[in-house]
């Protein structure tokens, strides 16, 4: 009656495996569980749709100025009034959003790409290469950001492309540092050593192991950088280093609206400001949630 119950041995010796899906899915779950994250993504979707699809539904003339219709208060014809050139403010908000979002995304992507390459190389090679590369980062990083941005902006005529380049030029430093630190710590992970033991070379280690594992950190950072780039773009525009009409940006809209602060032309001050606030907020939400989700993942493994 005390015969061994062999049923318990029926499963493979190693036991069964929980099916949870890849890390991406785990992060995704943690992410979607975060209400702010969902709100952030929702905001981004709405704002992007507003800026890029809005003009398809709401046609306005964003090319020809109309000084006789300048600074009109909101009305049926112009739900958010008009600006100093007579452009419809609502349509302008869409056009300005396009450039602001484009600059934000492109600058973040560019900065991340440069930063990842730089940081990964420095972290992987270590030693003198690392020391020199990081000293360069230190040097550029120690220049007060806005100073150097203004400096460069006074020299280079602002277009969408140059704005992206200027912002990215000084935004890649942070991801470079971050990725270097990450690579430095990942480099000594056991699974990287395992690849060495198998005879795997640097390129494989870097591309298959180090960078994919640093990707979370990179994406989080890039998300924050979109927010930062949009803010910086707005600040530069506000300070007078923005795109020229008829190109629009939210920062420039605010900048050209400030003279009318005392005229109670609220439609020139609130909409672009709120738009900047919302998009930056959204990216911050998403970045924050991504970081938390990633932390959850890190805690799990």
């Amino acid at each position, binding site marked *: 009656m005390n015969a061994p119950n062999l049923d318990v041995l029926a499963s493979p010796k190693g036991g069964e495996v929980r099916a949870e899906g890849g890390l991406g899915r785990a992060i995704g779950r943690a992410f979607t569980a975060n209400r*702010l994250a969902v709100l952030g993504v929702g905001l981004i979707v709405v704002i992007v749709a507003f800026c890029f699809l809005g003009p398809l539904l709401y046609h306005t003339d964003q090319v020809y100025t109309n000084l006789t219709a300048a600074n009109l208060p909101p009305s049926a014809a112009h739900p958010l009034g008009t600006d100093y050139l007579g452009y419809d403010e609502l349509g302008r908000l869409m056009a300005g959003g396009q450039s602001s979002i484009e600059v934000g995304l492109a600058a973040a992507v560019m900065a991340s790409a440069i930063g990842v390459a730089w940081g990964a190389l420095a972290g992987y090679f270590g030693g003198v290469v690392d020391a020199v590369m990081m*000293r*360069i980062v*230190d*040097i*550029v*990083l*120690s*220049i*007060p950001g*806005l*100073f*150097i941005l*203004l*400096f*460069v902006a*006074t*020299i280079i005529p602002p277009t969408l492309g140059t704005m992206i380049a200027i912002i990215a030029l000084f935004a890649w430093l942070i991801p470079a540092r971050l990725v270097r630190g990450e690579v430095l710590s990942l480099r000594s992970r056991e699974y990287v050593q395992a690849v060495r033991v198998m005879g795997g070379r640097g390129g494989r280690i870097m591309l298959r192991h180090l960078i994919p594992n640093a990707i979370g950190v990179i994406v989080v950072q890039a998300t924050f950088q979109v*927010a930062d780039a949009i*803010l910086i773009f*707005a*600040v530069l525009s*506000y*300070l*007078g280093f923005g795109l020229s009409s008829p190109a629009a940006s939210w*920062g420039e809209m*605010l900048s050209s609206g*400030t003279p009318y*602060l*005392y005229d*109670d032309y*609220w439609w020139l*001050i609130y909409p672009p*400001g709120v738009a*900047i*606030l919302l998009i*930056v*907020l959204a990216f*911050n*939400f998403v970045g*924050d949630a991504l970081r938390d989700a990633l932390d959850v993942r890190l805690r799990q493994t």
Partner: protein
Amino acid sequence: MTSYLLRRMGQTLVVLLGVSVIVFALTHLLPGGPARAILGIRATPAAIAAFNHANGYDTPVYLQYFSYLSSLLHGDLGFSYTQNQSVASLLAQDIPKSAYLSLLALVISIVVGLPLGIAQAVRRNRFLDYAVTTGAFLGYSMPVFWLGLLLITWFAVDLSLLPPEAPQTATLAGALADPAAMVLPVAALAIVSIASFSRFMRSAAIENLAQDYIRTARAKGLTERTILARHLLRNALLPIITLIGLSIPALVAGNLVVEQVFNYPGVGLLFFNAALRRDYPVEIALTLLGSALVVVGNLVADLAYGVADPRVRLA
């Protein structure tokens, strides 16, 4: 310790040298030059040539750089042609004002932000936490110039409670004499940094609250208040030291955007105007100063860290 300081000093010099090369190259390799900007619209070609010659702008860039460096080593920061003053005297005049503004804002954000952050950590996921978190997110997503404009619209234009701009004064004394005018600029700065201080403090405190040593303290039967004051605070403040170190440059280099929005004649505005007018000596000197401060800020933070954290040996 001395050797540590010496070494850090050496690093600082390397960084500053690098910065000076970058900035110098940016200003001097580009076409146009400062002459027309400085001499004004009516400058004759002869006057421009004379100006360029007098200031060495007609010599090779590397020579200009070396002569700049050598005068820098002699303590000469340069001369602002447009303002007919030495850069040093411009700084002497504007630094105290910027420091006053930034220091006020910094103190307020520390005094408000840190307790907020701790309170959030202690009441994590309760109403207070959510409210402050939302506020903090709004705070640091807000373009500071827009915040400034809103404050002006509400408190100066609509309510006429406060002056719309910072004290328009040459001296610190003048700024001190007009506290009402400082309210809005300080508020604009402080709101943004309270957001980041509280957020930072919150996560530092949460992280530390989860640490084993807090559990140890509880196991000793200490009251929560004692635990917060004696154990949590000091440890959670450690990362804040770095944040404060990062604020040091602004104490001297000013806050360009806020100074611009509120027309506060500080170092930030000095730089802004110099950039607009291509006042290169001012631009270069301020950028160098800013960089030096960043480096010094880091050093101060590290030193403070060394004092606050017994684990850190500065060697």
